[in-house]
């Protein structure tokens, strides 16, 4: 199974927490950009980037909203870096029942960073004038096969958990629906 080679664009926002001054300009512009109509309102609670701050402990972690998690994690991590103890979930991007970040304040619907679709560069990066956030775009060659391999690993795990039979039945049902 050899995959063809393709290129894909990888968009990376580099976060330098040492440069962050805690101003929350990134939250401001993200929430304004995603208002409807665009820029008509502002509310950092709707932002898809949130700065986890604890100024007296010198903790500043700009975090981007990632995928929605249906349930909170049973096991959690607590990091200590350079002598600073970070709260549980500090580095996690999930919109998750355990916290208020990355949810629309009124509806509770999950938010996710879309890299400011349609803009030249992510606006949070543009508004972060101290370069705590920088943007990088690069082309990466990927093997189509690579994805398939991942799929295979995933399926294997599911088969192990539920049995091949159940998995087959489920797949059949799903493909009918589709």
């Amino acid at each position, binding site marked *: 199974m050899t995959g063809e080679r393709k290129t894909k664009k990888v968009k990376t926002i580099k976060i330098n927490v040492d440069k962050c*001054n*805690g*101003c*929350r*300009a990134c939250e*401001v*512009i993200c929430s*304004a950009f995603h*208002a409807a*109509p*665009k*820029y*008509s*309102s*502002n*509310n*950092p*609670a*709707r932002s898809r980037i949130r700065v986890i701050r*604890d*100024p*007296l*402990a*010198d903790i*500043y972690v700009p975090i981007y909203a990632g995928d929605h998690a249906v349930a909170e994690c049973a096991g959690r991590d607590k990091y200590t870096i350079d002598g600073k103890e970070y709260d549980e979930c500090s580095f996690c991007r999930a919109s998750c029942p355990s916290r*208020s970040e990355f949810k629309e*304040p009124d509806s509770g619907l999950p938010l996710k960073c879309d890299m400011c679709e349609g803009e030249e560069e992510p606006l949070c990066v543009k*508004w*972060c*004038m*101290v370069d705590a956030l920088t943007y990088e775009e690069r082309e990466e060659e990927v093997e189509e096969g690579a994805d398939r391999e991942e799929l295979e690993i995933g399926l294997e795990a599911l088969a192990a958990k539920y049995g091949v039979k159940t998995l087959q039945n489920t797949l059949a049902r799903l493909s009918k629906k589709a």
Partner: protein
Amino acid sequence: MRYAETGYNLEIDLTLGNIERVETDPRDTELYLGGLGTNAKIMWERVPPETEPFSPDNLLIVSAGLLCGTPATGCNRTIVTTISPQTRLLAFSMMGGFFAPELKYAGYDKVILRGKSSSLVYIYIHNDQVEIRDAAHLKGKGAVETAGLIKKELKEPNAQVAAIGLAGENRVFFASIEQGRSSASRGGIGAVMGDKGVKAIVVRGTKDINVARPAEFMELCNEVMKYIQFRNENPIPNVMPILAGLGSPQEMMVHDEKWHTENFMWGNSRVRRKDFWNDEIAANWMKTLESARTRLISCYNCPMKCGATISLPGLPAYMMKCFSKLTYTMGAFSDLEFGLRIAQRATEYGVDGFSTPQVMAFALELYQEGILTDQDMPGLPEGNEERFYWLLDKIVRREGIGNILANGTYWAAQEIGKGADKFAHNNIKKHEQLPLKLSMLNPIYFLMYCTGEKINITQIEGQFPQAPFLTREEREEFVKDWFQVPDDHFKQIFLDWEPRGEKSMPFYPTVQMCCDIVDWQERMHYIDDALGMCAGLSSFPLKPPYHIHNYPKFISAGAGIDMDEEKLAQAARRYRTLVRAINIGRGMRRKDDRPPENHWKKRFPELEKELLDTYYKFKGWNADGIPTLVSLHELGLDYVGEEFLKRGIYSDSPDEASADAMANKVQKSMKGDVS
């Protein structure tokens, strides 16, 4: 829909425990903008001159500015207004940080406190849910500590907390309200908060703030950001470094303190140490700051990083900004390490970084002179630095001599007597000033010191260079891209301004020019205080990103109020006059409009008289500094004029005779308006 503002104030009666959400009148926004402007209107209407600072009827208004919560860079000021226990005049102190935007997102423009709680409480505002909560367990706790404890007990790490420390609880006349990164320090407003029994105001908001014309507004914001970038890359030449860039003076960043330490006064604003700064001190202080400073930090939505987290071995971390870096150091003739250490305790106690060191240095001077004795100060330690800690502890607890000193140098001197008033020498209107003593009168600064009703030189200066540049070429270079001027004649004034000779101080700029310059500088501060803009991006530095030409556009696009330069200037004049009117009602007159007697060595009484006479007239005030009926009428402030007449305010004035005639004239012209 209301734009930029929420259109609601939160009215809290602490005596009754009553909380109300009150819709405001949009017409007031047009006339008084917001922040200080509408605060002044409320104070005028509801706090008559008889009201004592510590009366339940005094209000404490904690207000966001009109544009706070919008994406306008650096627009984050909270304007706190009350009657000051120290000056007994209107106090309006501003704080940066994160409080004002959060209040807006919670759905309120202002929190208006009245009455008094019988026990210590804190106020918790979370969108529509507002509670008065017991704060007995926070009694005596530090202001920074309190913020941490409250956030923990509410499980609200994102809440913003404005709290008082022991000084506020004990009604020290120079107590501050602390808000982590920032504080509202001047005028003793923390004492009024303590008098009302409020330990803290806590706010968390997750609602929207709307802008009227989004595309236009963002365009303006982007221009401002571009210009900030430009200014950061192009500091202004020929001025000292702290005046070259934007932001509050970058005290947390700079190491070279030669200028401050050799030009500002040490001790009780007394001693100039001309050869203080040397390599050894420079190296020492650099080491101190480098090791104490964890990070440079900004206020909400601003890249300027004017503050810092300070963390010293053995002490809890705290945040510091601006010149408080040096006030304790210089008050005590000590070093930076001492200054940063005692400031930690002072921040927890919640006291003003200007007044406090001066009050303590004043006490020690009186002690040296034998006016205060061991009997007055039993237990005073031997060591100089220990004495400052000792005094600080006494003051915030109002123990012994501390109970007298807690009222500031003016009132303390009155109480101590024995000629102590000679030592309370650095006040304007009973309020301690920057420790600065100079030689030649500067006519522009003379007017600003006299008439700046924030009673703080930094809150009226800016925009126009403090001193002439040496050569014509340098001046020409400076005016080339000086588009912030209201009109070009300011450029000409500056071009012609020479360090020596015919066109030099004190007789140039001419009296009229001085009036124009002061009026412009003051106006920009007043606009900032209504919009909630940080002076560091607007009225304070030279060539700022916000100015008289783009502000009307910001207000139009942001708040949806039809605004132009003239209308904005008129609005600023209106509430500026209202501030003066409140103070006039409380007895302030020309006699109070003067700098500390020894601020300049070379004085020019005739010139000074002419300056004040001309400036008063220019402002529409009579010879005693009272706004005239005609000027009040022009500003739509007839209600002030009527009250003045009723109270006989004009009757002690030198031009009293004309008051009635004026009243007639005004009444006629008012009738004219109607028909």
